[in-house]
């Protein structure tokens, strides 16, 4: 009987000690991390001195150690997946070249919650994730709080990384630079990506279709890559209309209209840029007056009109839904990221799909096309201890080796180095590489704001855009007006622009 009551009180005490030990658990955690970093203190000095003397063999002091690296990447995303699959090759390379054993663990989160996952961890100064595959727009949000390592500093120590030549200046702009227009670098490109058009070649080359189309619209269905270079949005929409046959369960095209993450935005922006519009003025920081223009309203109307040629339920189409509809054979064409090529061109669709640049807009008699930049940079956790930092850098050096980049390309990733993209038969490695290489230039592709308020800017317009799409806003002009007002306010509050939103903004709802 007494032992009963004893055990009960013990339980109580246990509970209290649990709570107390929880507090002290914190300390022990810190202790362990500090010991591990202090134990590598000697490594640090020798490592950096070796690095400054040419970089080679810099990690000799790591030799014999066992390191566990942790990477956070994007769930269900081919290129992130590829780094998982290729990591054993690095382990072999590291063992041979530097003499240490490295194993990788991978965590993943979907696009819409990757930053939450990373931010929640990084703000505790944790090295839970040593390397993160971030979306390019997040660079500012990672850099400002001081969570990631400055790439400029790494490059000073590692000439090998500093000397990598990128295919086009847009690579550095999109995947490395923050703030826009400076030479401060924060990431290394992991995956290059642009929005491209996937088209069913087998339908295009069908003689009956060709004849019927010509009879109906008076021009030929484009057949070659060069034909598509000349394709304008007006002509393309006619093609989409032609192939929209609900009775056959076939639809002309698909874009992303979903409210989730940046899906609507990433698909829509090319229509603004290609038609000659801008989304903001990066120099003055103004949105109002730049975004809400007649040109952009028209672009929004055009973009929304694409819904007529999409399967029912288009309003909820995101990355996964477009891929699903296309691979299930329900689409003649699809605007989609070059990164999902491996998923879009399934074994059943092999040789039936061609990948071309997105349709352009005719501006002043010339065809203009500016695609959205997708893709992700690697960013390195600033709270890594010396050992993990060393391995992270070794890993990146390996990543940009020509063999590695080539292997990445063969498995379906989009490399970004000049060496890889300018290798003689690059275009033939993957069906989408020609369109990818064609589009990945400064004049043909752009990323959106690398601003620490990226997420708030995005959240606002995703809601307003989808609201307009589904009839919640009466006109495109009104929608852009509302977004411009709200974003101008955010930029003003953030100190990016000196101009407060105009008085007219007080009346928006």
């Amino acid at each position, binding site marked *: 009987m*007494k032992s009963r009551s004893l055990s009960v009180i013990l339980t109580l005490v246990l509970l209290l000690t649990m709570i107390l030990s929880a507090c002290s658990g914190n300390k022990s955690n810190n202790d362990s991390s500090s010991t591990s970093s202090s134990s590598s203190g000697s490594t640090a000095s020798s490592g950096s001195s070796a690095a400054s003397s040419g970089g080679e063999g810099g990690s000799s002091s790591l030799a014999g150690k066992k390191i566990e690296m942790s990477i956070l990447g994007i769930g269900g995303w081919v290129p992130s997946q590829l780094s998982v699959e290729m990591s054993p090759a690095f382990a072999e390379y590291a063992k041979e070249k530097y003499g240490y054993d490295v194993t990788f663990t991978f965590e993943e989160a979907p696009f*819409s*919650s990757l930053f939450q996952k990373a931010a929640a961890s990084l703000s505790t100064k944790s090295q839970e994730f040593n390397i993160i595959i971030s979306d390019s727009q997040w660079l500012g949000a990672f850099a400002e709080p001081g969570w990631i390592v400055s790439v400029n500093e790494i490059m000073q120590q590692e000439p090998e990384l500093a000397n990598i030549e990128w295919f086009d200046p847009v690579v550095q702009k999109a995947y490395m630079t923050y703030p826009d227009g400076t030479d401060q670098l924060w990431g290394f490109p992991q995956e290059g990506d642009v929005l491209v058009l996937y088209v069913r070649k087998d339908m295009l080359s069908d003689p009956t279709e060709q004849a019927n189309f010509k009879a109906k619209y008076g021009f030929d269905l484009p057949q070659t890559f060069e034909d598509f270079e000349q394709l304008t949005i007006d002509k393309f929409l006619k093609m989409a209309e032609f192939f929209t046959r609900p009775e056959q369960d076939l639809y002309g095209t698909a874009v992303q209209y979903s409210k989730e993450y940046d899906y609507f935005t990433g698909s829509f922006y090319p229509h603004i840029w290609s038609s000659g519009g801008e989304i903001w003025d990066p120099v003055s920081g103004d949105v109002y007056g730049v975004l809400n223009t007649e040109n952009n309203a028209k672009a929004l109307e055009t973009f929304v009109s694409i819904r007529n040629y999409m399967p029912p339920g288009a*309003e909820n189409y995101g990355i996964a839904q477009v891929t699903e509809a296309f691979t299930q054979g329900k689409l003649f064409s699809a605007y989609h990221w070059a990164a999902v090529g491996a998923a879009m061109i399934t074994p059943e669709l092999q040789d039936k799909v061609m990948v071309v640049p997105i349709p352009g807009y005719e501006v002043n008699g010339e065809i203009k096309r500016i695609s959205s930049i997708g893709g992700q940079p690697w960013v390195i956790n600033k709270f890594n201890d010396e050992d993990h930092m060393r391995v992270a850098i070794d890993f990146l050096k390996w990543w940009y080796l020509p063999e590695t980049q080539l292997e990445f390309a063969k498995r379906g990733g989009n490399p970004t180095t000049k060496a890889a993209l300018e290798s003689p038969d690059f275009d033939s490695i993957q069906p989408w590489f020609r369109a990818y290489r064609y589009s990945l230039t400064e004049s043909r592709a752009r990323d959106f704001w690398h601003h620490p308020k990226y997420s708030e800017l995005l959240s606002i317009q995703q809601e307003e855009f989808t609201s307009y799409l589904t009839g919640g806003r009466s006109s495109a002009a009104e929608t852009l007006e509302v977004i411009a007002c709200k974003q101008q306010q955010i930029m003003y509050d953030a100190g990016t622009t000196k101009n407060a939103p105009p008085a007219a903004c007080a009346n928006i*709802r």
Partner: protein
Amino acid sequence: MKGIAKWLHERNLFPYALLVPVLIFFIVWNILPLLWMVGLSFYKYDITTGEPLKFLGMDNYQAIFRDHGIWQALSKTFLFVILAVGLETILGMALGFLFWGSSKMPGRRLALTLLFSPMILTPVAAGTFFRLIYDPVFGIANYYLEAWFGLKINFLGDVKWAYPAVLMVDIWMWTPFMILMTLAALGSVPKAELEAAQVDRLPWIRRLWHIVLPHGKFILMLGILLRTIDAFKTMDLIYTMTSGGPGNATELIAISLFRKAFEAFTMGNASALAIISLLIAIAFTSIYLYILNYKERRA
């Protein structure tokens, strides 16, 4: 050890000692974060800018009161709570009564298990699969609607349909809970009184009114109360299905809150909204409990 218990007893502290663990939980995990939240609600705190906290006073609150979207979200939430809880209660009670006399039914245990299964499904899985079920191209719902009634409804892509569509999923998930509560309420009615009523040949409506309700009221009301609280917080189910869209068609207050906190990362603003919604929740729960107690006292 026994000495401690005795010592506590002598000073009449034993009852309070028993409460200590719960109070610790309450203070550490409820009061502290709440105070933290109140504090944050007066600051500008954007996780992504890395700027230090900036004191704003009541600005966050003013911004919320001026925000048209929040008012819309609130009215959608109230409507959601009323419709969801109302229909779940009506349906749950009706079905609960129907199941009442089934104690000798073959396989009753299995039938009830199947009946209760919706409420144990992980909301993320439920939301994702209902996206598929509702899909106009791949979805089973539209297939049968078209086959049987010649209808094709773009459930989650149409502003008119998205709200009723997510409401239906909530009702499907939580009506079983109200059935469970109804069965429990009916079970709490003393059998003797029921038998007496049977002997007296009272019409069923009077039996319901005079015998069943007075006994079962408390449990039913508690069920409704719990559902009300949870419906007010509904988030992950709807967020998985629509992210609050299309536009803001299904954006309930908890989703606005989530988007402020984890899409825009404006924590100060989100905290202010959290305080407001907490106050609302407390307000209507107290009204509720007051009515419950008031009736109890009269009875």
